């Protein structure tokens, strides 16, 4: 159990260093996804399985897809086919691939170990009861925040053509 925690934490830190030092945005995104997956494994080893699932679904899934969309929108123009070919050469994805493979081995070791549930593990049921009990107002505020972000992002990102150079 503890080795799995240390391995995942080291992978997260190493992948984050690679995010900072990459020059290409897409390469950095690959390492950022690995870093978020490693943090999810850290949550799992600590006994917060629900947080680990949310980390994978929302962070590594939804938010990273948003980043990829914007990167692709910024790079429209002639010659982007060659650029994409250069982006995904084996030298580029082998690094994140290796880190993800180590992470997979870590995960398999955890699942094969059997004793997944730490004694202080907090199940999803407890989180849900707390979320819709004492934290109900916070949930409402979060929904207002998301609505504001939706309207704001639409307003700012709208291509109205006025005032553009």
């Amino acid at each position, binding site marked *: 159990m503890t080795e799995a925690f240390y391995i995942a934490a080291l992978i997260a830190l190493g992948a984050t260093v690679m995010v900072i030092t990459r020059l290409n945005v897409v390469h950095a995104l690959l390492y950022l996804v690995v870093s978020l997956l490693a943090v999810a494994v850290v949550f799992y080893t600590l006994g917060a399985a629900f947080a680990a699932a949310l980390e994978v679904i929302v962070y590594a899934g939804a*938010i990273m897809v948003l980043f990829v969309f914007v990167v692709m929108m910024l790079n429209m123009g002639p010659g982007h086919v060659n650029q994409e070919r250069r982006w995904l050469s084996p030298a580029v994805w082998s690094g994140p691939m290796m880190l993800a493979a180590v992470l997979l081995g870590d995960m398999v070791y955890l699942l094969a170990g059997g004793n997944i549930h730490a004694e202080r593990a907090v199940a999803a049921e407890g989180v849900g009861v707390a979320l819709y009990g004492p934290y109900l107002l916070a949930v409402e505020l979060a929904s207002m925040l998301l609505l504001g972000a939706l309207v704001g992002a639409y307003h*700012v990102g709208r291509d109205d053509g006025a005032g553009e150079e």
Partner: protein
Amino acid sequence: MAAVPMAYAFLFAAALFALGLVGVLVRRNLIFMLMNIEVMLNAAAVAFVVAGVRWGQADGQVMFILVLTMAAAEVAVGLALVLKVHRRRHSVDADGISGMRG
């Protein structure tokens, strides 16, 4: 969990936060700065979850969900702003927009 000392878990969160802070300070590409802000938010969420698990309370994971919501809202507005800057200036350099006045 009992075998992982809480100090190490918090050390991990602090190191992740410091790496994100260094990234924001060092990089001048707006997309990189947004990505490193995500790393910093993630580190704060790790600290919440570690503390919640330490005392066996669900509050840590509830705060994690709220941080997640906030990060999603922040990145949506931030990326819309990046698109706007790129459309106007044809670059995503943070120093390029230092000439904005009011």
